[in-house]
């Protein structure tokens, strides 16, 4: 482990969740891999970011072909792969940063998040919300999905753009499904304000 990364770890250890993990990943993306776009954060950690750490997850799901194909980088930084666990995550014990590599089968949108001078990409607000909404619409949703959807909406209700959310839902084949059955079908899972918001999207769509 190099001295520079040692200092980053010490900084990360003094940051609140989930910014501690973002700090580590931003360093790897920007200073090791060369660009913020080299690491894209998806799913639970994106939800954690948009809820300021209220929603939590054990692992960071990332899309990073460059890092996946060069495991020596993670080894050099002190990560160890734990093949005894599902999906063989890479873990940095000092900060409890757990990395899972995932694929990218949907053309997601990402935003740049800068932290302490380095950058990393995070799934966009509307795509994160749509991802968990589509789980609720299409599947028997997990408790986490229900919580994430409601909390992300509460936290960013004035920032979420209807046209962007419509596009995000369409990407995940959830817009037509929602239109067909009506958002009120999910009144036992979604807050009334979110249902109203979704109804407005369908009406204006």
């Amino acid at each position, binding site marked *: 482990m190099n001295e520079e990364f040692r200092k980053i770890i010490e900084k990360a250890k003094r*940051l609140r969740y989930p910014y501690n993990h973002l700090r580590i990943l931003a360093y790897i993306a920007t200073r090791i891999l060369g660009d913020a776009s080299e690491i894209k954060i998806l799913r639970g950690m994106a939800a954690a970011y948009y809820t300021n750490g209220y929603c939590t997850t054990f692992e960071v799901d990332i899309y990073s072909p460059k890092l996946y194909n060069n495991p020596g980088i993670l080894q050099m930084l002190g990560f160890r792969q734990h093949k005894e666990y599902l999906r063989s995550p890479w873990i940095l014990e000092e900060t409890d940063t757990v990395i899972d590599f995932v694929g990218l089968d949907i053309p997601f949108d990402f935003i*740049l998040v800068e932290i302490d001078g380095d950058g990393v990409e995070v799934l966009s607000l509307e795509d994160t919300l749509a991802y968990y909404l589509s789980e609720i619409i299409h599947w028997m949703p997990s408790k986490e999905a229900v919580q994430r959807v409601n909390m992300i909406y509460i936290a960013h209700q004035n920032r979420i753009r209807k046209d962007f959310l419509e596009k995000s839902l369409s990407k995940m084949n959830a817009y037509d499904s929602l239109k067909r059955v009506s958002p009120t079908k999910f009144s036992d899972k979604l807050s009334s304000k979110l249902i109203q918001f979704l109804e407005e999207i369908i009406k204006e769509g």
Partner: protein
Amino acid sequence: MNFLEYINSYVGLVSNKFLSKVNRLYDWMEPILDDSTIVLGELAGKRFNQYNEETERGFRVKIERLLSEELRNVKIYYVSDKHHVVEIIE
């Protein structure tokens, strides 16, 4: 029961009771979510306490340490929809 315990008692439950509480707390929670990392950190800690027993993967995240009081807060600047800056408050 204080405010935080009150919220924490309900937010993790998927039920009509949960939803009615969320709806009722809506106006209270928005400013908290936007402005107070400390409160959310405490909420996250309490929520983690419900889940941080050994997971199916066999490891646990030491969230208690991560949420200790000496940790730094952050402020997020929304430069644009595609660009956020997380400033660490020293």
